[in-house]
């Protein structure tokens, strides 16, 4: 679902934060072990309306939004699409069966899909990577292929997307998926009981109508006609109306540990939730989509056993002895040092190493300068900081040349990305020129530049990405050469993000996760609405009384009147070419403003996997984010036995270190 949840965007930070926090818990409290089961809740008092009764009342109270129509109301001149021109995703060689062993750093705090604590890394296993949505973007072609919908059609005049639902679709508890579940989805996500204001807002403002024509035909209407309108309409998983019979104000506690029936291939049995230790997913052997073109030969393992391993060093050791099937090796130290090509397990062909180059929008790692702070409001200072940040050295020495320098924070959007803009290189001379232009001409006794008033050129560099602390220490040492002092403030992930959300930072090192979207977003990060309350007066001049606006993603406090106009034009535009041009102009303005130092992009993922984990020819698909995301791999149980036996007897195989660069982009 296209849900740019403010929390979701910081997932990268959050995972790191969890790593630190869980380590702490383990040490201090020696926690672990099973907690009390809370699956059973008090019965709902009699006379309380059921979830669906509440929903019916809600529909009746909002007739504008929820329309009940007849099949005859579907326009006849629609052009229906069904993605049938797209290639299959799964490999014909795939075999069903086996158990896939996985690890998670942190036990999920809930099995709910929304509400407090639900936005953790575990959600991938029960929602994001597993649940079938109405339609999905094809991982090679970007067009949509059918999921719960068999066909869809867009009516541009009415900004409405019509969808025919697959009558075969079933929830994992056997109930059919019908139009009612989509209606319920709106009731559910707009209800205050779920304690998720972001969802409440999204489902109230991004859609203007949902209509039911019969049990298997619906339409969704959007307020704006933008080029990516299909995405907003199709990337939805409905909410099972029958499951939320006890829905009410105590939803958060009542549904805390109940597995929500899914449209996907894997479900969780009650007995497979071992609190604090593991969760096991079981493959639905009668899954409704198992023979559908785009779903067959995927989701192959019979079971996925996910256990808690609190730190990544231990996780790696578990992988190395064969307790885990796969391990991400994207970090240089793992790829080159901890599992080098010369490792006996690799050389003997037991563990395969694979590098896969993908194409997708990249997370925006970089230095975000808060331009509302003293000194940072000066463009020369910002330019100086750009030139004083030695990312090339970090990439070359620390990441060992594996990553590339990011050009702009909007890399990976194909034609929407700027063709010629480049990040500024490390240049002490230029940095000092700009600092001098801002009045910082003298070096103090410690080598840090000072201005005439004796003020030091010193900024706090805040970050929550604890494992990347070494990167910051390298930057600090290098910046000192240009006379710039960076004081590193390493916080835990959520504390760091809280600080930047309150706009208390000078410079922040972090990233927003990027979704697989057609074009970048600008409003969230660059519009003055997200920087100040009433940033400008009527005539476009700066409002002298403006107040900083907190809790937004405009971390640079960007407020440029012309840029605002462009963003509004961009958001209102429905012409792709116009949007590309506007986008490029905005990127240029942002580049000139110099409030962001682009860091690096990783154009591949690397994974180590045991010989028995098989991948399709070509390894994976162009837009895939991780090796497991699309579930195209399979576990070959015979190979597993053979490999384990071979390992005991000393028999070896051909080593497999493969680079799949068929989708490598030139950067």
């Amino acid at each position: 679902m296209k849900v740019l949840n403010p929390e979701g965007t910081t997932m990268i930070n959050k995972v790191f934060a969890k790593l630190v926090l869980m380590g702490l818990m383990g040490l201090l409290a020696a926690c672990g072990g099973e907690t009390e089961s809370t699956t059973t809740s008090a019965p709902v008092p009699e006379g309380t309306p059921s979830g669906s009764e509440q929903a019916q009342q809600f529909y009746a109270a909002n007739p504008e939004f929820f329309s009940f129509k007849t099949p005859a109301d579907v326009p006849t001149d629609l052009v229906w699409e069904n993605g049938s021109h797209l290639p299959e995703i799964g490999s014909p060689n795939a075999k069903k069966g086996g158990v896939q062993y996985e690890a998670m750093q942190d036990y999920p705090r809930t099995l709910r899909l929304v509400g407090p604590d639900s936005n953790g890394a575990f959600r991938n296993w029960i929602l994001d990577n597993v649940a079938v949505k109405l339609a999905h973007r094809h991982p090679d072609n970007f067009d949509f292929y059918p999921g719960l919908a068999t066909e869809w059609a867009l009516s541009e005049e009415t900004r409405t997307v019509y969808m025919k639902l697959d009558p075969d679709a079933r929830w994992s508890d056997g109930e059919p998926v019908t139009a009612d579940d989509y209606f319920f989805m709106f009731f559910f996500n707009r209800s205050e009981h779920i304690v998720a204001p972001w969802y409440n807002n999204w489902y109230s403002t991004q859609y203007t109508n949902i209509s039911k024509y019969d049990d298997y035909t619906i339409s969704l209407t959007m307020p704006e006609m933008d080029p990516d309108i299909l995405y907003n309409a199709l990337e939805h998983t409905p909410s099972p109306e029958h499951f939320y019979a006890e829905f009410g104000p105590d939803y958060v506690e009542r549904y805390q540990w109940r597995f929500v029936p899914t449209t996907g291939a894997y479900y969780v049995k009650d007995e497979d939730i071992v609190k604090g230790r593991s969760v096991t997913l079981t493959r639905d052997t009668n899954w409704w989509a198992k023979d559908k073109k785009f779903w067959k030969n995927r989701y192959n393992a019979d079971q996925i056993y996910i256990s808690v391993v609190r730190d990544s060093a231990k996780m790696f050791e578990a992988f190395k002895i064969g307790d885990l099937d796969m391990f991400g090796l994207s970090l240089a130290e793992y790829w080159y040092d901890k599992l080098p090509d010369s490792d006996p397990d690799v050389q003997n062909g037991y563990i395969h190493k694979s590098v896969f180059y993908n194409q997708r929008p990249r997370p925006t790692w970089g230095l975000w300068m808060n331009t509302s702070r003293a000194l940072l409001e000066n463009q020369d200072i910002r330019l100086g900081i750009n030139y004083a940040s030695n990312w090339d050295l970090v990439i070359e020495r620390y990441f060992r040349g594996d990553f590339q320098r990011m050009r702009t924070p909007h890399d990976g959007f194909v034609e929407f990305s700027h063709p010629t803009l480049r990040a500024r290189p490390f240049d002490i001379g230029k940095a000092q020129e700009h600092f001098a232009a801002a009045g910082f001409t003298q070096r103090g006794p410690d080598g840090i530049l000072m201005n005439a008033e004796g003020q030091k050129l010193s900024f706090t560099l805040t970050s929550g990405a604890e494992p990347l602390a070494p990167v910051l220490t390298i930057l600090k040492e290098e910046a000192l050469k240009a006379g710039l002092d960076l004081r590193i403030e390493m916080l835990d992930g959520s504390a760091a993000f809280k600080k930047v959300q309150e706009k208390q930072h000078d410079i922040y090192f972090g990233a927003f996760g990027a979704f697989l979207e057609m074009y970048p977003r600008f409003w969230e990060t660059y519009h003055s609405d997200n920087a100040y309350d009433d940033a400008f007066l009527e005539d476009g001049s700066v409002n002298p009384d403006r107040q900083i606006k907190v809790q937004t993603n405009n971390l640079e406090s960007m407020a440029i009147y012309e840029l605002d106009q462009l963003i509004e034009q961009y958001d209102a535009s429905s012409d792709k070419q116009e949007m590309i041009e506007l986008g490029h102009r905005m990127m240029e303005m942002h580049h000139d403003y110099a409030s962001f130092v682009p860091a690096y992009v990783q154009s591949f993922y690397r994974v180590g996997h045991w010989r028995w984990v098989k991948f399709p020819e070509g390894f994976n698909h162009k837009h895939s984010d991780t090796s497991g995301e699309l579930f195209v791999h399979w576990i070959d149980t015979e190979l597993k036995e053979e490999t384990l036996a071979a390992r005991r007897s000393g028999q070896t195989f051909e080593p497999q270190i493969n680079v799949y660069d068929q989708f490598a982009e030139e950067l």
Partner: protein
Amino acid sequence: MLFKLNPQTTKKLRRFREIKRGYYSFVILMTIIVVSLFGELLINNRALVVSYEGELYFPTYTDFRPGTDFGFDYSYETNYRDLKRRFEEEGQGNWVLLPLVPYSPNENHSVTGIYKADPPTAELQHYLGTDTTSRDILARLFYGTRIALFFSLGFLGAVYAIGISVGSAMGYIGGWFDLLFQRIIEIWSNIPFLYMVIIIFSVIPAAYAISTRIVILLVVMVLFSWTSMTYYMRTETYKQKARDYVAAARIIGASNTRIIFHHVLPNTLATMVTFMPFTIVSAITAVTALDFLGFGLPPPTPSLGELLKQGTENLRTAPWIVISAFTTLVVLLTLVTFIGEAVRESFDPKKFTVYK
């Protein structure tokens, strides 16, 4: 001096000197502390002496010198290792005397061109190897230890100052004051120490210089650990106060100040001294644990905990990290514990009350 050494004390000190293990530990530790005071002369990337065009420079403790001072074309701090190499190549009689280990603890100096942990090499003077970002481990260990030692001494001083004043006051004044403080201490000491330090320290803004932040961490730690000393002092003061000599002093007309400082406190010396090493041990352990968890001294401050953490994460690929950090910590804690044992034994009154 606050307390005049009475014959009793001199006897105790003599006894301490007789306990060889503790005494030598004390000597070694003192040597380490004294040497570490002049650490910049031993482990530093600034040269000790530079002789350039007939003039001598001593950059160790002075302001930074830009490269332009010595004929380089850059305005940032001179790289004295490069300078030495250049002078040797030029052969014009200029020379540089570098410290034993010519690296600063924060400097990334890679052997291979890649920032990663490299094993010890004598040739490049990385005697204990480098850490995961190619910083010299010996330098980090040395300065980390120095910070830990002085941190714990500062901690000791502060905890004792508060603990002794409050504890003695409770014991001496007694009554409602004693009751009130007992309750306060009971509540205060139930606050989990490490958690509170982590929570409070995490909200301290990083805008301060690193040295200031270290002091803040010290204050926060003291804030949550001054209580333990008070109870011992309170008991001890109570005990002394009830003794006849105190009553006698009072009858003579001695003031409270005189009684406290000349009579009571000197007699509680044994308690104070006995706890000293253990306080130091706990301070070193606490600050190491905090760093290990990533909540302690701000990066890139060198610290034992940070090295230990790196070491455990790279146990297999870079064992030299954990070995150096672990050995240092063990040696340090063992020394302090030996001293503690010896102090306790020499101050043990039983030694002097045995009737033959």
